[in-house]
């Protein structure tokens, strides 16, 4: 029942001992940021006659739902790495990873196959919740270069009318999305390993769309539903990573740019059987 904590570079994270989920991040400058992360899902819009959710169209029927029950977990702690292996549902699981010399927390997720036996298309998101005061503002990158300022329910170039309260606030994420609390001088950055979409619907929150399986053609060109059978006919399974950084704004901007380049330029590993390393050396 003791709080479970892990030490990263410049921060320590604490985990909820009943679910294994992250609870807060304590920075080396003494600040403590509440950080929760969970998976949720949107039901795709499907009433006949109106544009449904589909390959080109993101149109959730309503707010996101959670997964029933409580995640189960196991933690493996070694001097080189702290890992939480967490099962959220029969098709959502993740490993949270903290290295002692790395300022980022790695979320290594596996989603799918998404069950659609209930005839409901589903879109799975990862939701990060903090106590940061962000005043409806968040940032997404443009091609991994400049960070674009986004404001909820707002467009800088025209008078925006809220028709799709959720989809209308989704923006493309090429490599990262972030929130800033200027008063507290704290920034949350979530880096992705591929292009995804995301938003901040509530203050201090970020959500990123991870996987979708929909049952209707949105009549925008693909001529079929986003319902791939996958290798074994049960649907697609995806695996990916998010790298999460909570830090003061200035150092965060340095760290996430460096990480972005490092992720993009990961080393190439080549393997060869060999008898004597000394001879090779």
């Amino acid at each position: 029942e003791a709080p479970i904590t892990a030490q990263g570079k410049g921060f320590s994270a604490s985990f909820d001992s009943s679910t294994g989920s992250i609870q807060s991040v304590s920075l080396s400058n003494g600040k403590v940021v509440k950080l929760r992360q969970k998976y949720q899902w949107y039901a795709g819009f499907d009433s006949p006659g109106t544009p449904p959710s589909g390959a080109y169209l993101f149109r959730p029927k309503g707010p996101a739902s959670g997964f029933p029950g409580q995640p189960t977990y196991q933690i493996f702690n070694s001097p080189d790495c702290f890992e939480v292996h967490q099962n959220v549902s029969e098709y959502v699981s993740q490993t949270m990873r903290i290295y002692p010399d790395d300022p980022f927390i790695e979320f290594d997720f596996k989603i799918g196959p998404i069950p659609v036996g209930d005839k409901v298309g589903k879109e799975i998101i990862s939701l990060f919740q903090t106590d940061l005061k962000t005043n409806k503002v968040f940032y997404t990158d443009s091609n991994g270069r400049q960070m674009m300022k986004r404001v909820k329910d707002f467009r800088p170039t025209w008078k925006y009318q809220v028709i799709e309260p959720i989809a209308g606030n989704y923006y493309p994420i090429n490599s990262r999305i972030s929130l800033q609390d200027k008063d507290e001088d704290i920034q949350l950055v979530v880096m992705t390993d591929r292009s995804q979409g995301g938003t901040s619907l509530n203050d201090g929150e970020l959500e990123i769309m991870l996987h979708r399986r929909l049952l209707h053609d949105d009549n925008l060109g693909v001529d079929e539903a986003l319902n791939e059978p996958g290798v074994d006919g049960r649907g697609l399974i995806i695996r990916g990573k998010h790298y999460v950084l909570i830090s003061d704004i200035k150092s965060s901007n340095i760290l996430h740019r460096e990480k972005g380049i490092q992720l993009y330029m990961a080393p190439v590993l080549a393997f060869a059987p060999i008898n004597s390393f000394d001879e090779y050396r």
Partner: protein
Amino acid sequence: FETVHNFHRAMGILQHHDAVTGTEKQLVAFDYAYILNDAISKSMDLMNRALQYISSNDKSSKSNNEPYYTLCLGLNISQCEIVESNDKVLITLYNPYAHEYDFKVRLPWQQSNYKVTGPDGQSVNASIIPIPSFMQDFPGRNSSATHELLFKVRLPGLGIASYFVEKLSANKPAPRLETIMPLPTL
């Protein structure tokens, strides 16, 4: 140039916005992977010549016991046939990043003992960490590894470094792993 041309062709095709964003149909995704994999497999001779040229200090000699490298393209799902079927493996890493890079290497591993040796001949600390059960049965993964050997390498900017990983049959590694289980929930 013929080999590099394969890459040019593959990357030319993968300029399509679907390939860049992953929005292609699954069968197209398989085709993209096939095209790229084909280019990679045809480039192995070129890559080996380059690595041998860089790593041998006598450019003119053609010693015939140069290691012949392959890639493990399934490393992201903890699958690497060479590591799993050989007791002594040389790993040479190329760092395309222009700065020194501390990189975490994870290799599919059983629970056998290990010895990792760095480029300077010193042994390198490592940990053996279980692969989560939900990652072991990933579709398409054909590996019996249940753990990963994790160690950190330090790579020079725009450079290469070689590490040597050896399975030791001697007794089990000293446990460097603490396992925390949740309290049984009522």
